[in-house]
């Protein structure tokens, strides 16, 4: 290592808090070394400020480890902000997630809500009043105690009209905000407008903000400007954290470095304060394939890998000592749907020609199309066999809520023809499918052009439909144009899209309720157009109002059955998910859904 190179490193002055100047040089070099060639082992351990854990620390259930190590991730995007009220994108969200915590946390491996900043909670018999008790002795990263005042302040900021943020709609029930009351310094009472099943999970999404640091911005209305990237570059210490990490330095176009929060409120069973790692580096790369290449060449410690890349990434597993964990089906669904909107545009022209609307509204037609799709073929051919066919709205990834006994449509052109004949369709002399009025069956399928797997699915679908005598024209649009067609102008016949799923079924209200905006086959209905849509509305509304989990599973299971039977969305496939992680890290717990390093605070370097 050339000594001159240390000049390029950002560590030197930021490290002053913990190290003497002579040490800083060594570790600055170490960070650079680690960032460039992470395979290069670092022997020195960083001296950290060790404070005794708080009285009511959360004790990790995983085996204890030791402090040390640098964890390197790559990210194709850069955070736009470190302010949770402003954050809209995944990269900002994941950076903020390392630094700020909510009252509750979600354990994706055990699939349950676990205590966060709140140590415990009680639910009153009215099923909507929750009393949260905060942990005693917990401090912000600057040593200021974290109390009920911070919680009240955070919700005041979220609900404040001056600060429009997406948390505001998350933290409402039927459009009404929760009532927040401070009981004493460590006790908070939160009353929801009505019983809301996923309340405990959603309350954890509201990050608790430091009142002492942000009160001034709140008062003068500049809260949305606080903690912006300029602030993070100039003065990273001003971003006060309650989570496992704090900002150490942020260099746009290069990397973010996080350091451990000396006041974090979790400890291991040996009494050591978490997190174990000394630094987390998020290095920015150009795009997803650059990120995958960085992992395959041993430059970073963790990466999600798409099915088509698994084969070649695996080749360097032994060389760079990593393992690719198979996570099973991903929670992302993909589906084809027909526009069943009976409305007319401004000029009085129907969105869909009347004879086509008649096909699309015919359940047997939709079922026949579903039977005609070779899902196994798409998986074997396009996804290298690494995928799972999908029959309903929930993918098998969401094991807790997945209903395995719904109707399946295994590839069978014969079954499809039978259903089409029953619905009055027949083949004409040119082997084209025609309806009862002799209209040849043909429609245009729209999808967005950015996604190569979706393009492949569309071309396979076209060939599959050709076997049934149906002519499909493919139209590839850019995502924005496509979305405006679906949500505003409704001038399309069929579409192919996907949803990122997983989590609580209450999150699907916008999709499954007939009044929902994402109820794409016929959105925003004033009242349900069909009996089965009315039934889904009733089931969905009932399931968010009951806290009995088995009852909720039954209700959501029935929604899945109806969706599979009626096929308003003709579900296609879900790719399997893969996670690559370096073997040197211990306490790895790869969940089926979500971030693979969700428990980064518990991960430690093997001795």
């Amino acid at each position, binding site marked *: 290592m050339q000594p001159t190179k240390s000049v390029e490193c950002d560590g030197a002055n930021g490290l002053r808090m913990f190290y003497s100047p002579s040490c800083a040089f060594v570790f600055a070099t170490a960070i650079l070394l680690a960032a460039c060639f992470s395979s290069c082992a670092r022997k020195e351990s960083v001296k950290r400020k060790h404070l005794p854990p708080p009285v009511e620390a959360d004790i990790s259930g995983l085996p204890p480890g030791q402090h040390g190590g640098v964890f390197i991730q790559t990210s194709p995007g850069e955070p736009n902000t470190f302010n949770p009220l402003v954050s809209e994108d995944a990269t900002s969200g994941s950076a903020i997630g390392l630094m700020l915590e909510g009252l509750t946390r979600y354990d994706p491996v055990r699939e349950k809500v676990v205590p966060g900043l709140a140590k415990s909670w009680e639910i009153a018999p009215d099923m909507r009043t929750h009393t949260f008790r905060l942990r005693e002795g917990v401090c912000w990263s600057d040593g200021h105690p974290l109390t009920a005042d911070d919680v009240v302040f955070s919700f005041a900021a979220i609900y404040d009209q001056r600060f429009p943020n997406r948390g505001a709609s998350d933290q409402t029930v039927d459009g009404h905000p929760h009532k927040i009351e401070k009981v004493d310094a460590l006790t908070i009472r939160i009353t929801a407008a009505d019983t809301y099943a996923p309340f405990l999970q959603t309350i954890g999404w509201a990050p608790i903000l430091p009142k002492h640091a942000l009160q001034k911005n709140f008062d003068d209305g500049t809260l949305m400007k606080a903690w912006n990237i300029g602030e993070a570059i100039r003065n990273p210490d001003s971003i006060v954290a309650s989570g496992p990490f704090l900002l150490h330095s942020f260099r746009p176009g290069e990397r973010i470095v996080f350091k451990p929060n000396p006041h974090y409120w979790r400890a291991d069973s040996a009494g050591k304060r978490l997190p174990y790692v000394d630094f987390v580096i998020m290095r920015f790369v150009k795009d997803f394939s650059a990120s995958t290449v960085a992992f395959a060449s041993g430059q970073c410690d963790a990466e999600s890998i798409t099915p*088509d890349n698994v084969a*070649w990434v695996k080749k360097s597993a032994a060389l760079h000592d990593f393992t690719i964990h198979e996570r099973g089906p991903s929670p992302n669904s993909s589906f084809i749907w027909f526009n069943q909107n009976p409305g007319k545009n401004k000029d009085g022209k129907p969105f869909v020609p009347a004879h086509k609307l008649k096909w699309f509204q015919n359940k047997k037609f939709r079922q026949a199309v579903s039977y005609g799709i070779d899902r196994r073929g798409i998986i074997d051919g396009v996804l290298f066999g690494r995928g799972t066919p999908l029959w309903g709205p929930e993918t098998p990834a969401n094991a807790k809520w997945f209903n395995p006994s719904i109707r399946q449509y295994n590839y069978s052109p014969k079954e499809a023809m039978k259903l089409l004949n029953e619905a009055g369709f027949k083949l004409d002399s040119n082997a084209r499918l025609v309806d009862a009025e002799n209209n040849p069956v043909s429609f245009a399928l729209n999808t967005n052009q950015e996604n190569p797997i979706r393009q*492949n699915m569309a071309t396979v679908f076209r060939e599959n439909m050709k076997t049934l005598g149906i002519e499909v*024209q493919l139209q*590839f649009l850019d995502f924005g144009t496509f979305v405006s067609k679906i949500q505003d102008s409704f001038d399309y016949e069929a579409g192919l899209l996907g949803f990122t799923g997983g989590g609580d079924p209450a999150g699907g209200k916008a999709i499954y309720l007939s009044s929902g905006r994402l109820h794409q086959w016929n959105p925003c209905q004033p009242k349900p157009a069909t009996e089965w849509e009315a039934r889904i509305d009733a089931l969905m509304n009932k399931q968010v109002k009951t806290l009995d989990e088995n009852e909720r599973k039954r209700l959501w299971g029935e929604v899945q059955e109806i969706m599979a039977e009626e096929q308003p969305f003709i579900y296609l496939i879900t790719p399997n998910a893969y996670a690559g992680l370096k073997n040197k890290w211990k306490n790895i717990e790869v969940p089926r859904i979500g971030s693979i390093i969700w428990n980064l605070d518990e991960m430690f370097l093997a001795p």
Partner: protein
Amino acid sequence: MKNNLFRQLVATPAGAGAFLLLAALYFAAALAPFLAPYSVSEQDLTRTYHPPCRLLWKDGRVHVQLYWNKDRTASAYEPVAGQTAPVAFFVPTQKNEKILGFIPCAWRFFSVEHPARIYLLGSDSTGRDVFSRLLYGAQISLSIGLIGICITFFLGICVGGLAGYFGGIFDHAAMRLTEWLMAIPGLYLLLSLRSALSSKFSDSGQIYIMIVLILSLLGWAGTARVIRGLTLSLRNRTFVQASEALGQTPWRILWLHLLPNLFSYLVVSATLSIPGYILGEAALSFLGIGIQEPSSSWGLMLSQAQEMKVFMLNFWWLLTPGAAIVTTVILFNILGDRLRDIVDPKFRMTP
């Protein structure tokens, strides 16, 4: 003069070679429905990323080696020892496709019996034959240059010729228009035109015409300026003045006296600018805003080969459209160079 030019062109090996190869390429593209063993969109999901098949001679006829998928998760294929399928020639087909859009084609040049498949250049992500798609893609990639050049030269001759001949206000207006067009960065204008028009055109035939139009409407300005300059210098020659004195109409003078004198320049410049159209189409398709699936073009095929796995798992046959583009562009440049040498001997390179 035309015959003379052609004879001189094919007199040298470079000129003759380039001309013959290009002729063969265009011929193959025109005969795609006959030469390609499969249609442009025929998939086989059990044989994705299949490597090119080996051909061998057995029992007095050509056979194709059969392969099995050793590892589905990596699309690794291995030849099955001793298992081959005979290749049949002039196979009747039910596919009702037409050569050049009007000659019905009842045969395929070669094919193997189902369920075996012949992949001369391997298969793509949905098991389509890359060789067939290259041929069908050539129809678009190669014709776009010819059609584009026709539109460009028509516009260039009209605007440049009239501007040079009449001069004055017409000349002024036309030249400012061309300057304005040339001042706009081409690629951005192309991209914005394409995205502005994309919602209006969806069918692949319409997209094709739109791309030709966009490319040629951006390309005529340079041609118009050169033609104007040439016309201006010819205009004052005595034979033009003589025809004017004889009372011939401007159109007739343009057509009969000026155009033949411009002919040699036009031929050279056309040959040298065709590659621009081929590359323009490839660039648009590569960016995902050109020819769309399930149609095929060389740029589109190349854009589908830009994934990491193609390089890491060595699916090299997916890069053949790139080789096709490079070859065509080089051939056109050689041809253009030869033509220029013949037309303008002063520029000929001396050894």
